[in-house]
């Protein structure tokens, strides 16, 4: 099986101010994502998981390292045409759909924009395609005319997913895409993501802090902390037989039936990680 994403030795440093030490957001990160699989990236705030996604989709430049998508290296010197192709091949869904939707634009037009940018279709063909896409994410045709404000959080996230699918990408990067949703809506959106992947053979890079969601959606997982990958493997291996003390800490701290929070767990494990 071929790798749809290959990232090797990726580094990214942010300099916040002269007074502070530069922050190593990505510290020699290497990841390979198999075509058609879902790779979860798990970590807490400041772990570098979002920076990894942003570099992959081209929202952030890298300091050094290699990124290849479907065997084609991604560099800053890409021709315009190649840039467009990359933009189409990798789509992103963010946590807050309000940030990706124009509140003055009916959601159908928001999906239509993507079609106009990438495909030579006539107006009527596009209209049909918008309707198909809406249907595939479980939205009624009548919603195309709605402004985002008339939709619920779950519906808006479906529109954001429809927009991502409209470009017919190879990869979708989901950055905490289900984290803000109520559990009943989250279950529906996860189910939708399962279905779309099964039907279209897409690959996902799924960024989340929630290990339960990882178990639900992903095949493989990397655990990140302070810009480094601490552990990687199949979801079952990492969640059932965690090797890194940090992964064990994350698993221990996640609320579950019969769980009680304990004081001092973090300090205990921090000292373990440090040693």
């Amino acid at each position: 099986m071929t790798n749809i994403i290959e990232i090797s030795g990726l580094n990214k440093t942010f300099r916040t101010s002269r007074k502070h030490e530069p922050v190593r957001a990505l510290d020699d990160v290497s990841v390979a994502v198999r075509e058609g699989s879902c790779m979860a990236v798990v970590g807490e705030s400041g772990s570098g998981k979002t920076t990894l996604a942003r570099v992959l989709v081209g929202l952030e430049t890298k300091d050094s390292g290699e990124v290849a998508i479907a065997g084609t290296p991604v560099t800053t010197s890409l021709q315009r045409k190649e840039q467009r192709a990359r933009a189409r091949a990798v789509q992103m869904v963010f946590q807050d759909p309000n940030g990706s939707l124009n509140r003055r634009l009916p959601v159908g037009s928001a999906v239509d924009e993507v079609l106009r940018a990438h495909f030579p279709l006539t107006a009527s063909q596009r209209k049909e395609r918008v309707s198909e896409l809406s249907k595939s994410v479980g939205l009624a045709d009548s919603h195309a005319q709605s402004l985002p404000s008339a939709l619920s959080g779950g519906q808006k996230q479906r529109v954001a997913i429809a927009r991502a699918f409209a470009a017919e990408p190879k990869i979708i990067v989901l950055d905490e895409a289900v984290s803000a949703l109520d559990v009943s809506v989250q279950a529906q959106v996860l189910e939708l993501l399962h279905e779309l992947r099964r039907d279209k053979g897409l690959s996902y890079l799924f960024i989340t802090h929630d290990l339960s969601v990882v178990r639900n959606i992903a095949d493989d997982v990397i655990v990140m902390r302070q810009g480094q990958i601490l552990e990687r493997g199949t979801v079952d291996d990492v969640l059932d037989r965690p090797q890194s003390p940090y992964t064990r800490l994350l698993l221990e701290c996640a609320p579950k039936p019969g769980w009680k929070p304990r004081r001092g767990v973090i300090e205990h494990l921090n000292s373990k990680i440090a040693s």
Partner: protein
Amino acid sequence: MIDISNLELGIIDPDSGANKPVLKGISLSIKRGEAIGLVGESGSGKSMTLRCILGIEPRNSVVTGDIVLDGENLRTLPGERMRGLRASKIALISQNPHAALNPVLPIETYLLEGMADAHGRNAKAARTRAGEMLEQVGIRSVDRVLKAFPHQLSGGMLQRVVIAGAISGRPGLLLADEPTTALDVTTQAEVAAILDEKRRDLGMSMIFVTHDLDLAAAVTDRLAVMRYGEIVEIGTPEQIRDNPRHAYTQMLMSIRPTLNGATPQAHDDGDSTGVGHSAAGLPAETEIGSTL
């Protein structure tokens, strides 16, 4: 400690004058020293219940029903007395600690203000006490934190400061509205443990609002499951977990993704057709029983 009976809240639409019911008759009794969890999805009315207790419900809302705290009906108290109660008997910890903290004042001022104003301590005693409180919530570098401004501290640290401030006046009732939701999972575990421990030590009652059933179960004695402005079920965490009676509770328990890999079943609550949701994004009345 506190008795809420038949609490109703409706929001009046300024144009049409229509009354949109948000709370539809909440009744709840909490004993001294007892912690109760209000759990539910967005729009269920859990935060609005807290706002009614504090008397800070939104404008153009109509509230009926009684909230009796230690023999006084909060809904009919004069404003001045209510302010006094908010300072001495009730404390709120919200999701965002920045909402409680003044960005241009150091942490010390925040803690001293509460103690000196509401409890008449002299400045020196209050300063010593502020340091003690920070130690109690697991802050090591007390002096540094007292001098720090809110933007210099992490979310977990700030939430500990707010907890210290909340418990420093030994209020009888602690209202916690998603106090750990914005925190990393490890920090959440630490902060929840501190909150739980301090509340028990001081014998305070608590209403803990959260969307996370397992978290609520870990820090409370009873859970009230809310949906569309009503409490559909009250029980001990064990009873809710092992033997949920209401169809909605059963659905909540069955659909959440779990660590051990049980596959959740997506339930159609009307979201896909849009008919189940009003313009405000609040789920409208739909019968979920048929989908179970």
